[in-house]
């Protein structure tokens, strides 16, 4: 394995974990470990299906696929094709609901 020439020797694993993890990482881990992340994902998925967002995205994908040809499309292409519209067309109520739940989780987790 190629290593950078100037890299210092790897310190002990215990010390690294304590210092180099940002707050964000810690929160992420807590989110996953507690199962809250899965719950949030399911909630968001459900809401997006209900409001037709998923169908809109699928139709966008189909249009893109029609344009490029069925066999010339990669997942990456599709992701880049639908991400701008996808992020912009989230209904405000759904966004607010999810943000509220995240905030309350953060509040309960930080204490």
């Amino acid at each position, binding site marked *: 394995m190629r290593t950078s020439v100037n890299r210092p020797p790897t310190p002990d694993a215990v010390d690294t974990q304590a210092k180099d993890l940002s707050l964000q990482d810690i929160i992420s881990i807590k*989110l996953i470990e507690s199962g809250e992340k899965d719950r949030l994902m399911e909630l*968001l998925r459900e809401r997006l299906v209900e409001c037709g967002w998923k169908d809109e995205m699928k139709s966008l994908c189909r249009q893109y696929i*029609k344009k490029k040809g*069925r066999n010339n499309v990669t997942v990456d292409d599709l992701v880049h*094709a639908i991400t701008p519209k996808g*992020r912009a067309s989230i209904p405000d109520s759904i966004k607010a609901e999810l943000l509220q739940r995240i905030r309350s989780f*953060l509040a309960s987790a930080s204490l």
Partner: protein
Amino acid sequence: MSLPDDENDSMSLNSQLPAHLFGDLLDSIIIDVASECHRAARLGLDRNLELEEEEMRLSAEARAMVVDATNNGEVNGKYIVDIFGQTHPSIANDIFECMNCGQSIMAGRFAPHLEKCMGKGRKARLKARRSSRLAQNRSARGSSVSVHSQYSSTSQLSNNTPGASGEGYSNAIYEDPYTKF
């Protein structure tokens, strides 16, 4: 989290953190949707996709044919295909009775027929003038005063100024059928 630096960071991060986490969730879901569609496309599971391709091709063809047809519709005869794939003859061929003269007329020929029948053209004017005099003599003096007044006024005018009378005449004629009913 005990270091002051971390606390400052956490103050500013906390405002962005929920949005950041929401963005992560959203990205995962977008990837899932894209992956699903990609799979369906590659496996050809979406029958609709091919149907839509067919339809697009057909509609493009039909559109091309319409563009051609508008230029030389008569040459093609009756075979103009519209966007629904229907054909219809270029001259409408429903037959019905003219309400003015009672002849049975083909729908596509109705407008020119009406022109002659109701007196827009030169020949029709002569015909109508003749028939109006007959109508004057035939109908009793008391009945349908409106018909009389219009005919009498226009017949006087027609002797003097042919140009103006043409206009007045056609107006009278157009109103007339309605009073007949």
